[in-house]
């Protein structure tokens, strides 16, 4: 199965070149994608944890979210 291709447009000449990615470039691309996906999942997990902590704090303080926003104004 051929590797994905990349297109390069030379803005000075207008020439378009279709270039097949090397195996090394494909591996680099896949590794970068895995890192990006892991980072996104980590951010989502952190957002979820922050939401739980925020709810617990508001309950401990005995105030609503709207009241908390007033404090920050």
């Amino acid at each position, binding site marked *: 199965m051929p590797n994905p291709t990349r297109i390069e447009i030379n803005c000075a000449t207008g020439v378009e070149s279709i270039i097949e990615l090397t195996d090394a470039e494909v591996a680099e691309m896949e590794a*970068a*994608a895995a890192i990006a996906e892991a980072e996104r999942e980590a951010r989502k997990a952190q957002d979820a944890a922050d939401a739980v902590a925020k709810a617990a704090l508001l309950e401990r303080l005995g105030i609503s979210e709207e009241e908390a926003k007033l404090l920050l104004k």
Partner: protein
Amino acid sequence: MANTFELISSYTASGSVGSITFSSIASTYTDLCIVVSSRTDRAAVPDYIGIKPNGSSANLSLRILEGYNGSVSSGTDTYIYGYCPGASATASTFGNMQFYIPNYTSSNYKSVSVESNVENDASTGGNWMTAGLWSNTAAITSVVLYPVLGSNFVQYSTAYLYGVKNA
């Protein structure tokens, strides 16, 4: 208001393509504007489209403001990107994205502003605003656009590179 907003080059994908590079960009403009209409083959609703100035993935950073799937959040990252629909988004639907790079030839670090959206006829659609920075003093002579999680831009994805100047 810019006096010159000139199309430098454009590309329309006639089939799947792994990345799009605009090279040998002239230094005669002040700013660059890249307008992208894209969709990728990632098996999910959203994908990211990354940008590499001069082909570099080093010294990139961003802060992103996200309104997606009914909630708002922000975050930081070590590369610069916008969002576009993936293969699981509404069929035949492409997302719009704009990268704006002011003073691309200066010897200062380069800011990259990105606005993007994922078009999806369901709850999982969204808009993103990104403030990016390439911490490099080199003039930009090329940019690479690439799907971060998918393998390819799909057919009919387009990219338009414009030069902007006040003269």
